[in-house]
């Protein structure tokens, strides 16, 4: 086992730097496509959950509960082996994108649902009274207001999505963690544990830290603004009462 300060180990990592870059590329590529899929699913099921039609709400609820209450690894294995044993394998990367997209789609749906649910009912009624149809109401009135509530938790989900690409290891994945592991255990490349793990952890950190920091700053400023509005409303109503 080479230590953290062994020069030969670092040289080995530097020589095989393309492995890490390839892993980072694969992870970001999968995360990007899975993100698109999860956004599509999240918006569809989130809108279904707030549509007010019972059967659409039930469908959305079942999707969210089933996906959120089982591990991603299980879903991934299910999809991968079901396809593999029926002879229609899609390849690791595509399978990974699909199951990551479905998994995070459920979380996105909850985020969208919460965001739309936070809009006062009067806004929906006002839009309807002005003769807006469903699409117009959502597009012009509701979504612009809920987007600022939706975005911070959505960014958090993106961070989770990027971290969860490591699940692909169990089906022999091509993501950053899997490639790092095969690098440190490989016959010709093996041994440089500390530098390799440090490098791959650092790559994840560089990608995820700005996103999660952005999300938390955003969330805090939203909370502060809400508090201010609440106080303003309170003082106004108190003023009305005392008059």
């Amino acid at each position, binding site marked *: *086992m080479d230590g953290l300060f062994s020069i030969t180990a670092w040289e080995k990592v530097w020589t095989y730097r393309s492995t890490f870059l390839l892993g980072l590329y694969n992870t970001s590529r999968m995360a990007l496509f899975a993100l698109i899929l999860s956004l599509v699913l999240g918006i569809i099921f989130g809108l279904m959950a707030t549509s007010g039609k019972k059967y659409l709400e039930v469908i959305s609820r079942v999707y969210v*509960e*089933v996906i*959120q*209450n*089982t*591990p*991603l*690894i*299980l*879903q991934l*294995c*299910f999809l991968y*082996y*079901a396809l593999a*044993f*029926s002879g229609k394998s899609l390849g690791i990367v595509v399978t990974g994108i699909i199951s990551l997209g479905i998994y995070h789609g459920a979380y996105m749906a909850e985020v969208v649902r919460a965001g739309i649910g936070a809009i006062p009912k009067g806004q929906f009624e006002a839009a309807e009274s002005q003769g807006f149809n469903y699409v117009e109401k959502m597009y012009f009135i509701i979504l612009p207001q809920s987007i600022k509530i939706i975005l911070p938790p959505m960014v958090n989900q993106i*961070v989770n999505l990027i*971290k*969860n*690409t*490591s*699940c692909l*290891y*169990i089906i022999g994945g091509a993501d950053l*963690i899997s490639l*790092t*592991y095969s690098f440190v255990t490989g016959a010709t490349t093996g041994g440089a*544990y*500390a530098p390799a*793990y440090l490098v*791959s*952890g650092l790559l*994840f*950190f560089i990608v*995820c*830290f700005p996103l*999660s920091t952005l999300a938390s700053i955003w969330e805090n400023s939203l909370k502060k603004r809400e508090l201010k509005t609440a106080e303003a409303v309170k003082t106004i109503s108190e003023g009305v009462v005392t008059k």
Partner: protein
Amino acid sequence: MSTLEGSLSILKNPAILSYIFKGVAFTLIISVVAVGIGVLLGSVLALVRNYCTTKKTRIFKWLATAYIEIFRNTPLLLWIFICLVFFPFPEFLSKKMFGLTSVEVKLLFKGATALILFTSSIIAEIVRGGLNSVAQGQFEAGHSQGFNTVQIMIYIILPQAYRNIVPTLLSQVITTIKDSSYLANIAVIELMSRVKTLLSAANKYNGTGSVNVSDVFVLLGAAAIIYFIINFTLSSIVRYMQKHPRIPKAAERAA
């Protein structure tokens, strides 16, 4: 549908059933222990990050912040691999126990350590949310009654903070149960890994001599149902608690 019957007959085998349920037990124990220790570590981290703000103690605040941010922004699997190589293993534990071989005990110890370290960083942020939700006036009230800072923390702030975060901690148990399936990557101990092992050996048990699609559906489906029952029960409890808080909100109390 003879292959499906063959696959279903796997689940009728008592040896396999007990094998699966041992996996369930391990999943639950690992998760509960991880969250339990996570609450302890996480509370310390949260307190340090929130209240070590004087010039002398600021270094500890930075350390706690670094710990939390590093673990939150890197995948669990990386930490499992790191602990596998670098975390010291006490030799006296290296023996057969809980029906595991000594090698498996070692892997369980290291994997669980990674899970605990990872979970405690998330719980630290949850506890911090709870601490921040306690009104500032509570500190002042405590000080005015002659409590010192430690007493204020133990008797006034922490009890209120913990009571506020019980639902969030329970949902963290759900997340940890799901996260414990990451241990399937290194050892055959908990539910996910056991089902995966059964799947690869399904040809021995289903009577058809080969692994079929129906085996995937039956075995992984059974695991999915088990996970779902556990987690759905927990998440229903969480929802109930959020709807019926034991302490009414401040506004309701005032009204």
